[in-house]
């Protein structure tokens, strides 16, 4: 395939709006190729979008669907010659997930949180999502084996467990959510801060985070730990964010990347002492990110309208439900995690929601380096992913932000600095925050860029970047970004002007990390006891079997193997 004359943004390779041709050969970017010619003259061309934090598959997503037929009935599209039926807005069915990402020009999306015990379900759903490549991060932060290794300061056993857990779950990386809190929630409690002791386990969240970060680096995993802070969603929680980030600043990364990726920073950038004096602390957080280089974040932007909150922060979800009188699902997973699902609505005239909306934008605009900030809405917690063009145009256009602020609760200017921020992001920034940076943060070497050898994932938009004024003509930009003119995945044209043309299956990335056998042997003694006494299933039936990953892409990692001397 040849893509002719596009205005290409490929920041990972130093290309910022050059007019050039692109070539795809056997599904990969190449220096030359033959075949189908796509005329992209003057149009915006970027690598396919990479969503590094989204909730698209697994038990909590399906619970979201089952408890919300009122959501499923929105966005219903009948089947076509190429497509299965679509349903849902905040909790789309599997087919809609794939088609809608593809229509928007996204070609990779990673499920943010999977408990090991229920990973089989996650993979069943991932396999049903057409077109996009995917992966799933594995939850470790409230896990009995993890906490015991941390308590015993046994780092090599912890690393062996992380490797074993990733293999059992066919997971891509280490996800930590409200560490320790998931276990406390097993009896209805929570942890109040990173130095609070987890009941019955004699460890603190700080120790859990440090232990997992070190194990992550010992294993040379492609991604860093991916962390949802304690105290998420509470007024005044910005101090927990800073405290936690400070813990990690002296750990050496094993790869050219961050030591910690912060999930949906917006929800942890709160000031005030209650909902009454609630205010943004985004400037303080942004200053921290500007002054340090060991952390990255994704925005977790909240948009007005309906959403479904779903997270492993179960106590938070219970709190959400009580506050808003909404329906509440909870699911605690033996020995491993907790989770909750609560449908929500966000309102312009509600001061707290308006400030939350401003905070996400403040963060992205106040952090100087776009490589540190990924554009997300923590789908579907902040808003469904189909609304990404709304977020992007808010970042690119001050007039648009001003018009929005004028419709909000009048106290908003007192609680955030957003109105005073002049900065408008450009295509370089956006292509970094939605393509190059997510790929680099995740450690996906062949994604998010268009250099030779990269996956042939390209998005072309009906927009002339050299002509359009992204500040004034934001409505035109939003419309163009919502429906890519062409989306190419692995060298196949999958979507044209919103019509899905092909639905090849995507691949599921997972990490197989090697560890010394001796450490695994020590680990197995613990695990065999846990299965014999505590788990409700046998160890033989625990791990995800090959049958669930017919399109696997395995990334090797782990401790360097020492070769034996004969």
């Amino acid at each position, binding site marked *: 395939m040849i893509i002719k004359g596009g205005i290409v943004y490929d920041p990972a390779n130093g290309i910022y709006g050059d007019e050039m041709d692109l070539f795809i050969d056997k599904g990969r970017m190449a220096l030359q190729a033959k075949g189908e010619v796509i005329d992209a003259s003057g149009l915006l061309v970027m690598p396919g979008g990479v969503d590094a934090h989204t909730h698209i*598959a697994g*038990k909590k*997503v*399906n*619970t979201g*669907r*089952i*408890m*919300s*037929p*009122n*959501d*499923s*009935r929105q966005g*219903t*599209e*009948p*089947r076509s010659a190429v497509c*299965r*039926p679509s*349903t*849902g807005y905040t*909790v789309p*069915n*599997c*087919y809609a997930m794939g088609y809608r990402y593809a229509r928007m020009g996204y070609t990779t999306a990673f499920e943010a949180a999977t408990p090991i*015990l*229920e990973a*089989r*379900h996650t993979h*069943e*759903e991932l396999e*049903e999502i057409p077109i996009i490549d995917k992966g799933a991060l594995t939850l470790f932060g409230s896990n009995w084996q993890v906490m015991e290794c941390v308590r015993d300061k046994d780092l090599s056993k912890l690393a062996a467990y992380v490797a074993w857990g990733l293999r059992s779950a066919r997971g891509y990386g280490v996800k930590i959510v409200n560490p320790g809190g998931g276990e406390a929630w*097993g*009896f*209805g409690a929570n942890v109040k801060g990173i130095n609070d002791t987890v009941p*019955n386990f004699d460890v603190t969240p700080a120790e859990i985070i440090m232990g997992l970060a070190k194990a992550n680096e010992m294993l040379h995993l492609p991604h860093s730990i991916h962390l949802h802070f304690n105290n998420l969603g509470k007024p005044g929680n910005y101090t927990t964010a800073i405290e936690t980030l400070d813990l990690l600043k002296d750990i050496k990364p094993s790869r050219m990347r961050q030591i910690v990726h912060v999930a949906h920073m917006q929800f942890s950038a709160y000031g005030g002492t209650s909902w009454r004096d609630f205010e943004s602390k985004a400037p303080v957080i942004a200053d921290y990110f500007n002054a340090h280089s060991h952390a990255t974040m994704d925005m977790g932007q909240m948009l007005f309208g309906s959403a479904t909150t779903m997270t492993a922060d179960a106590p938070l979800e*219970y709190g959400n*439900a009580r506050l808003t009188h909404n*329906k*509440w*699902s*909870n*699911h*605690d*997973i*033996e*020995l491993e995690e907790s989770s909750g*699902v*609560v449908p929500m609505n966000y309102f312009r005239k509600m001061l707290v929601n308006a400030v939350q909306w401003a905070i996400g934008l403040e963060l992205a605009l106040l952090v100087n380096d776009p490589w540190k900030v990924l554009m997300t809405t923590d789908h579907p917690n902040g808003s469904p992913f189909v609304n990404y063009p709304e977020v992007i145009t808010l970042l690119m256009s001050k007039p648009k932000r001003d018009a929005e602020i004028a419709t909000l609760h009048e106290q908003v200017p007192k609680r955030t600095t957003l109105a005073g921020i002049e900065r408008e992001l450009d295509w370089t920034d956006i292509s970094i925050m939605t393509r190059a940076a997510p790929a680099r943060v995740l450690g996906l070497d062949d994604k998010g860029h268009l250099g030779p050898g990269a996956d042939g994932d390209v998005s072309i938009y009906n927009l002339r970047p050299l002509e359009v004024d992204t500040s004034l003509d934001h409505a035109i930009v939003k419309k163009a970004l919502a429906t890519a003119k062409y989306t190419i995945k692995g060298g196949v044209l999958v979507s044209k002007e919103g019509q899905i043309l092909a639905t090849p299956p995507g691949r599921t990335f997972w990490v197989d990390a090697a560890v010394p056998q001796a450490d695994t042997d020590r680990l197995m003694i613990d695990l065999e006891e846990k299965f014999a*006494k*505590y*788990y*409700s*299933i*046998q160890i*033989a*039936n625990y791990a995800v*079997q090959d*049958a669930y990953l017919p399109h696997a892409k395995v990334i090797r990692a782990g401790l360097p193997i020492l070769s034996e001397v004969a």
Partner: protein
Amino acid sequence: MIKDAVCSFCGCLCDDINVEVEDGKVKRVRHACRLGSSKIMGHDRMQSPMIRKDGVLVASSFQEAYDRAAQILLQASKPLMYGWASTSCEAAKKGILLAEEVGAVLDSTATVCHGPSVIGIEEKGLPGATLGQVKNRADTIVFWGCNPAEAHPRHSLRYSSNSCGRFTPQGREGRKIIVIDVRETKTAKNADKFVRITPGSDYEVISALRMLVAGKGDTVPDEVGGVPKVDLADLADMLKAAKFGAVFFGLGITHSRGRYKNIDNALSLVAELNSHTKFVIMPMRGHYNVGGIGQVLAWSSGYPMSVDFTRGGPYFNPGETAACDLLARGDADAALIIAADAVSNFPRATAKALANIPVIQIDPYENPTTLLSDVVIPCAVVGVEVEGTAYRMDGLALRLRKMVDSSFPSDEEILMGILESVHKQRQLKANEGA
């Protein structure tokens, strides 16, 4: 010897079953209860596909059966595809594809079982957990309108009353077991407290409990549902005094007066108990994979049961799109019954309706549904002869093993055979028209 096989009978999905296989046959089953053992050992089954000709079921080939089934489905304006609870998720996926292709209504046995629970969850959500949480933490367990001693024999030892876990080393000794039912069941005989309520009064009793738990007992009359207020107050106190409480419920509450409102109310009671202590609730799913068809249907269509695909976009409205609704109103003109015995489990009027329409049956075993069928296709047994995925009553997915070979095709293969025949017949018709 096959170790740690998963039993494919009830919603417990016990996975510690040891099976001795000799000469390609199951010889002995260890650890399973008598219900599961019987299933795995197997019994007389249908040997050949059959098609009804001149009123009599006559042996046919598999292809003839697929073709006739496809013809029936294509001729129908509103075919119903029902059952799914005793086959794998892999088969369910193919079934949904077929339903989309021919424009059918697809429903599971939840419609006569925990369908009301699903509707209750749509109102309130489900505050739940995996069974291992109950095993490791629960010191108070309530069985409401269910009788696991007879319907889920190993539930008590593996997951609930008699199980031992990290925070429950004393097992049964350290627990309070409460049974709420209209009669004293076998489970009730082994409970610490049995509360007998008047049939049909579950909703009011739950409302009274909610009031008592919230400290608003003054409003509650002296007797509710045949239970003295003082007893209900005792019960409320027991629940609040729990360190970790679990409520298991079954057909006694889903199918008595109130139906989904009963579940709706119970879900709220449990949600409110969470402001005092930790509580979870779980439906006692009957068939081993009724949970699975619900999960697969939900991620495929947005809804877990009673999905109408006739107009291309999935439409969900139990009361209108459920199997019993359609059959009772004569609003289905063909039926495909798979992995369920519709005639035995439907209300009579609904079962009778099957006599008036062409019926396709896919099942290993002959049962009353066979008598009404026009096409009968015997299949391999999932969990014994075919691998596949099933979801336990708490939503945990497990992989069922293949233990012995079989000459029968799997449900998945049969559904694909019918789908291929549908495509062929459509193609032929299109060519004729051209």
